[in-house]
């Protein structure tokens, strides 16, 4: 391929900014300078779809109403483990207003030796069994309640530690495979190895397997920290539940989906119904949150399609809040044993990690790779086990694995710092080689006032104050399945199209910014049409891949379209198009100031009705670490927490968080702040509040609602300040990356470290509740 050499900004402005030379494809645009010198990139740009959101006009999947549409309701298992002997749907079918009933059959042959029946074995409360389509949602709900299911019940287990015992009820007799949207990103879990309910371990990742010699490492150590940490199961609880509206006629299956991956929903539906992908269209214009759990069509997508097929009418099927909690994903819990060794000067000599967690009937309960890669350490090994239980399957949840792993690792590092008599920040300066986290520590500490920190437990009075810090890393993933079409219409109008969806992060807005910057237009001049699989394929909104994957081809396609437009203007002005450029809504001659015309006038020179350019993500400049798109560099963060702990009541209040982050070239400061706020608040929630509570006697979730599934509301929100560090590395034409996962990883660890600093007693388990604080205090007094 023809390439050329191009200089790119490299490093961190205000710290070590320099230049790097890269060999890039000859047709790609020149490097953008640093954000200071750009018009709309890196600025505070208003979200382009905010007007629809604040006026109630935004149409989400749950809001769709099609002519003749029926409403569907699924019915679900009410016992945790059973063979279904029969299902009686006669009463439901006879209810006035019911149009169709569809049962999930045992077509896959689940292989369980006890099950010879027509239906899959029940493995958890809330497992879908069938669905009903009716004239109204009320009728569908009533009909669902009339379905009689007869079970032959089996022993079950919902508790992680109970499931690990050798005589525990067995959840699956057979090897199982990791579900498509489950668990850790980029890591496969082996469900065929192991004994009883304990499967695995997973010992290696895309960062390699074990390294060095742990025995030697711990022999060399002067100081050892050895602890066990516990984290809970929490559910995603997006405000809009999972669901679809399916409109299926002879030509096309149209699926309106609340999804973070239109392309994968399209692929799944085509696969299930044996349709060509060209006959399935998935549309997601607005969606009400996903956080990792909405990458597939689940069982509700095929259910709605089956009901649509049976009735010949469009079918609306959105889950209710309880179904959402029970069956549509959660972050697995963990019991993590961690042993770290260091020399007197702090140099790490060994890290050993062993974890058990349950993703219910799914796999993917690892604790990520943060212990493997965050700090330099020559000797490392991990064993991560999946434990099967009779509970709903886990799913990727904002920074899967790493959030659990950071809670353990970053507390262990804090404890090590104390044993070495070093300040936790100074200690991290010693063992963390990341340049960007160094800057984040400096700038974050200054804004936070880290120098106020006093020794652990020295705070006086009933309400004790504490300060803590936690760090994180997240890989830079790039999806090569990232394509866009950019159109310039004759007479004005610029449009961008892709199947990529905006899950609330502001993808629509950053795409408009990239196009506007390249064409010298205003963001409001750009029309963004995304979330439709009729357009070029875009990535799923997960793993923080979207920005890094889709913005470079967006810029490249725009650049191609611009070149074509400039050629037409150059022809008119009898000059070379390389003499021309665009800014402030005008095309101008770089040396002859008399020559200029508006963008709109320029588009009138088109001989056809439009310029249309499609571009796809190319390899990173300089290539990838792994050929499938693990990029160089990482997305690091340092978060600081200030807490108040009432030692009489045990109540912990997070007063303030300072979150220092990097994401390559920041594109939209306002939206980045919003995402960081969200990650931090979810981290506060993980540290102090939310917890899926299962009843061991019945296998039911006890708090499958909003009022008892505790998450922070306005009264629990701390003051949050953000530091966004620009970091240039010249890896693509935008050099920009996402921030979704990083925002969420370090918070719980920072809070736990701050709680320790306040009361002088360390808590190894989340959520940290008033009762756990009081228990910890009573054990030392």
């Amino acid at each position, binding site marked *: 391929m023809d390439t050329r050499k191009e200089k790119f900004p490299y490093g961190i402005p205000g710290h070590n900014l320099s230049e790097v030379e890269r060999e890039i494809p000859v047709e790609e645009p020149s490097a953008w300078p640093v954000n200071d010198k750009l018009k709309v990139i890196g600025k505070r740009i*208003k*979200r382009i779809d*905010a*007007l*629809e*959101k*604040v*006026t*109630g*006009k935004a*149409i*989400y999947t*749950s*809001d769709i*109403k099609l002519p003749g549409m029926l409403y569907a309701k699924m019915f679900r298992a009410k016992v945790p483990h059973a063979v279904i002997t029969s299902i009686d749907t006669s009463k439901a079918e006879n209810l006035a207003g019911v149009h169709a009933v569809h049962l999930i059959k045992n077509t896959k042959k689940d292989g369980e030796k006890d099950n010879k029946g027509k239906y899959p074995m029940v493995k958890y409360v809330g497992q879908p069994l069938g669905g009903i389509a009716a004239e*109204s*949602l*009320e009728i569908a709900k009533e009909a669902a309640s009339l379905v009689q299911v007869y079970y032959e019940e089996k022993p079950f287990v919902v508790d992680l530690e109970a499931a690990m015992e050798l005589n525990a009820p067995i959840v699956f007799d057979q090897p199982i495979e990791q579900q498509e949207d489950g668990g850790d990103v980029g890591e496969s879990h082996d469900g065929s190895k192991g004994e009883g309910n304990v499967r695995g371990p997973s010992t290696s990742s895309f960062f390699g397997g074990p390294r060095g010699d742990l025995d030697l490492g711990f022999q060399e150590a002067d100081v050892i920290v050895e602890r066990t940490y516990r984290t809970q199961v929490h559910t995603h*609880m*997006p*405000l*809009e539940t999972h669901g679809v509206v399916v409109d299926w006629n002879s030509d096309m299956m149209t699926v309106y989906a609340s999804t973070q991956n239109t392309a994968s929903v399209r692929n799944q539906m085509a696969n299930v119904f044996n349709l060509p992908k060209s006959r399935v269209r998935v549309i997601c214009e*607005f*969606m*009400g*949150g996903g*956080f990792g759990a909405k990458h597939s069509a689940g069982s509700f997508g095929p259910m709605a399609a089956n009901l649509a097929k049976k009735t010949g009418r469009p079918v609306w099927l959105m889950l*209710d*809040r309880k179904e959402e909690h029970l069956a549509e994903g959660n972050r697995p819990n963990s019991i993590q044993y961690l042993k770290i060794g260091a020399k007197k000067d702090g140099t790490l000599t060994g890290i050993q990690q062993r974890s058990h967690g349950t993703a219910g009937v799914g796999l993917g309960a690892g604790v990520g790779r943060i212990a493997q890669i965050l700090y330099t350490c020559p000797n490392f090994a991990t064993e991560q086990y999946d434990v099967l239980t009779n509970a709903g399957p886990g799913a990727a949840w904002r920074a899967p694995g790493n959030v659990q792993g950071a809670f353990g690792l970053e507390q262990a590092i804090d404890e090590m710092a104390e044993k070495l008599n070093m300040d936790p920040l100074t200690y991290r300066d010693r063992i963390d080689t990341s340049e960007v986290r160094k800057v984040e520590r400096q700038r974050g500490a200054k804004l936070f006032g880290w120098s106020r920190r006093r020794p652990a437990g020295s705070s006086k009075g009933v309400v004790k104050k504490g300060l803590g810090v936690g760090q994180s890393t997240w890989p830079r993933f790039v999806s090569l399945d990232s394509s866009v079409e950019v159109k310039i219409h004759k007479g004005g109008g610029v449009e961008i199209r892709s199947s990529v969806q905006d*899950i*609330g*992060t502001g993808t629509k807005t950053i795409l408009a910014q990239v196009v506007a910057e390249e064409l010298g237009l205003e963001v409001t001049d750009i029309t963004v049409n995304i979330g439709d699989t009729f357009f070029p394929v875009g990535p799923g909104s997960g793993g923080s891949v979207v920005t890094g994957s889709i913005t470079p081809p967006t810029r490249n396609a725009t650049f191609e379209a611009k070149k074509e437009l400039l050629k037409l203007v150059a022809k008119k002005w009898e000059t070379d198009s390389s003499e021309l450029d665009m800014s402030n809504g005008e095309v101008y001659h770089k040396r002859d100031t008399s020559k200029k015309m508006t963008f709109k006038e320029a588009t009138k020179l088109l001989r056809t009705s439009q310029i249309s350019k499609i571009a796809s993500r190319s390899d990173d400049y300089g290539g990838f670490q792994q050929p499938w798109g693990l990029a160089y560099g990482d997305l690091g963060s340092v978060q600081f927490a200030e807490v108040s702990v009432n030692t009489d009541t045990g109540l912990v209040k997070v007063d303030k968080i300072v979150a220092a982050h990097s994401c390559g070239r920041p594109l939209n400061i*306002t*939206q980045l*702040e*919003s995402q960081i*706020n*969200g990650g*931090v608040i979810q981290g506060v929630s993980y540290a102090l*509040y*939310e*917890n899926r*509570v299962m009843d061991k006697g*019945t296998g*039911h979730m*006890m708090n*499958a*609602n*909003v*009022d*008892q*599934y*505790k*998450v922070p*509301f*306005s*009264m629990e*929100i701390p*003051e*949050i300040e953000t530091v966004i560090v620009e970091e240039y590395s010249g890896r693509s034409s935008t050099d920009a990356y996402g921030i979704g996962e990083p925002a969420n990883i370090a918070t719980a660890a920072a809070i736990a470290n701050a709680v320790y600093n306040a009361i002088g007693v360390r808590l190894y388990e989340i959520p940290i509740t008033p009762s756990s604080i009081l228990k910890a205090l009573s054990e030392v007094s």
Partner: protein
Amino acid sequence: MEHKNPDPEPKPEKTITRRGFLRGAGLSTAGSVLLTSNALAFDYKEELAVGKEFGPEPMTLKMKVNGTVKSLSVEPRTTLAGALRDYLELTGTKVVCDRGACSACTVYLDGKPVNSCMMSAFDVGDKEVTTIEGIAKDGVLHPVQEAFIEHDASQCGYCTPGMVMSCVHLVDNHPNPNLEDVKNATRGNLCRCGTYPKVFAATMAAAKKSM
């Protein structure tokens, strides 16, 4: 323990509303499932259509919504939220928890915020309903809406209509709210994306502008 949703159908003689049930049920749990719902709309005192026979067939109902009287035929078990969303195509009002714990379904009845998922459509009577679609007047945004856009006070946007309803009510009825007032006004509004800081900033800015 499995929560059984009480039948929302109004029973003329002995009225057990969902809200009344939840008042009793919400406080009886323990451990980390502690803490009650804190929806502001709980203060509203509804007037039940006592003594009348309803249903089970659909019945015609007149309701004044955003300044216009609408006529609709719904089953007596229909909630106000269901009537707005499924029969009047006013889908800005969102149903998230369906039991009065998240305020996404907030609308006004005669200017007072209520949870429309907790109310029978037949209990509205002659009160005027205002939904999110009725907040901007003649295409002119309310200062709170403008500030929400300016301060990026929405992410996925699903909680936004309810948030706007709570914040507009505060700004229209409180001369000079401080941060605590804004937090108090939105204390029942759940936002899972964690947009609260921007909601607070937007509402304070809107209040300053409205003075």
